[in-house]
């Protein structure tokens, strides 16, 4: 069997195992892009993994004034959870605490679907009876009086049950610096792909986990097979010369968008070639029994 390689970087013949999620998109606008980003970053903070954050969230892309409903700069935010009820709660709490509170902000639907989540429909109660409902172009907006004027918030936003979470690539390399640089390139490339986010810090996670633990009550623990300091003690997945492994986790509104993002990520990682210290690109899975979505690296780079 001939090994798959891009510029000398080995592409392991395996697959990323991903899970169905529910996802939504909202648009945040502000007097300038900086404040739209502040609101969006605050809202998507502490949202790396559903394991303990309740949601996975991130900024999809920035929007120019001619792309938004109020003609101001904006940001598209994606939010994912495991079920619709949790998504509704996370959306209400995060927009209520982080966007409503952010100076000059406004918040609009980013998805149009038949069924929808409440947005302004629940936040309007903050107006204590002074909120005003306005219909523009068949869409309902709430004007909620706040100390810097009015918070304009659309009544509802759409959501999809076809979202996918946990698409991933793992990058192995001969030095920490090389792996980090390659992953930074990959996150940048994935940023350009629509409908996806990379929820971890800077898009990169260094503490990949396996299911279960030796300790009772610990549902996930360190992925020892990929820990370079444990090569001699466990059934390691790493060659001796690998010094660091980092993972890029991708959530998307569709399975197709995840595949596109993984492809962009893989090519960006391999761009520097083996000469720059990256040795392997692989992916995380649980043997294929847990998640219905399997993204085979071989097919993705084809």
């Amino acid at each position, binding site marked *: 069997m001939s090994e798959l390689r891009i510029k000398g970087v080995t592409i392991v013949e395996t697959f990323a195992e991903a899970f169905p999620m529910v996802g939504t998109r909202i648009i945040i606008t502000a007097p300038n892009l900086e404040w739209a980003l502040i609101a969006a970053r605050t809202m998507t903070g502490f949202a790396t993994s559903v394991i303990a954050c309740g949601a996975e969230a991130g900024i999809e892309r920035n929007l120019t004034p001619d792309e938004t*409903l*109020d*003609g*101001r700069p904006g940001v598209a935010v994606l939010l994912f959870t495991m079920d619709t009820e949790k998504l509704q709660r996370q959306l209400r709490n995060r927009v209520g605490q982080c966007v409503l509170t952010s100076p000059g902000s*406004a918040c609009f639907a980013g998805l149009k679907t038949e069924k929808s989540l409440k947005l302004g429909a629940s936040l309007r109660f903050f107006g204590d009876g*002074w909120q*005003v*409902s*306005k*219909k*523009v*172009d068949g869409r309902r*907006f709430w*004007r909620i009086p706040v100390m810097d*004027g*009015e918070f*304009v918030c659309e009544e509802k936003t759409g959501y999809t049950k076809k979202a996918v979470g946990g698409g991933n690539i793992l990058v192995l390399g001969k030095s920490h610096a090389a792996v980090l640089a390659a992953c930074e390139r990959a996150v940048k490339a994935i940023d350009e792909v629509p409908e996806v986010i990379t929820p971890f810090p800077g898009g990169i996670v260094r503490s990949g986990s396996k299911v279960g633990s030796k300790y009772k009550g610990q549902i996930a623990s360190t992925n020892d097979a990929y820990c370079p300091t444990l090569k001699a003690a466990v059934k390691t997945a790493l060659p001796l010369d690998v010094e660091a492994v980092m993972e890029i986790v991708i959530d998307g509104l569709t399975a197709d968008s995840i595949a596109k993002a993984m492809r962009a990520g893989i090519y960006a990682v391999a761009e520097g070639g083996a000469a720059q210290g990256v040795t392997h690109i692989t992916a995380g899975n649980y043997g294929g029994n847990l998640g219905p979505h399997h993204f085979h690296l071989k097919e993705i780079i084809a």
Partner: protein
Amino acid sequence: MSALTFELKGKPGQRLDMSPLTPARLKDLKPKEIEALAVGATRVALTVGDLFKVKGKDASALRFVGTDARCDKIGAALTEGEIVVEGDAGAYLGAAMKNGKIEVKGSAGDLAGASMSGGNIAIDGDAGERAGGVLVGDTLGMKGGLLTIGGNAGPLLGERMRGGFVIVGGNAGDYAGGRMIAGTILLKRKVGRFAGYGLRRGSLIFMEEPKELLPTFGDCGVLEFNYLRLLEHWLRETGRPIALGGRARRLMGDMAALGKGEMLILA
């Protein structure tokens, strides 16, 4: 297919009730049946055939040519399709309409768009009294949709309005937005006296400061309104570019009624 066209042959001797001539009603009728429809309003029976030269086939788009101010109820209770009026329209233009589109190249009489709940009426010329107001026998004025008046509007514009959007390009008469419950009226020029009389909720947006304001409105000062930007964007996207800007003086009222309505006077 060309639009089903009704060309008025001469001045009718009585007011006409044009409400049977809607796309929904005509779509399954044969030309003979259409010509036999009664459109008179007196004991002297008048049919479509007596008054109009009927041409064209497509009943989803109707054209009325040469109509005058005695042609009442054009597009009344409209539910679908499009009506173009190349002439004037009488009273009750698009009254109680639910959906569809009406375009009038001339002017319209009283009660244009009264108690309409959806759809789109565009009048190039003037509108009589109670445009978007309360239809006789109804309790509420306009409930939804868009009513655009290019010229002047008569008194009691949008009376007891409950929703929807009205744009007046010219001047509006007395009691504009009187007893309004919700909805929005955008007034590009002057208004008469008592604008917003009895306003409960809803917005009156003035591009020109009204000469006389009711004393029962309270001033909130000049403020930023992102809502105005939202409106401006929508107007531009739908081919009605009107520069609103983002700043307006907000007056709340009518404090003699519920008082949760507003006048936004663009700054």
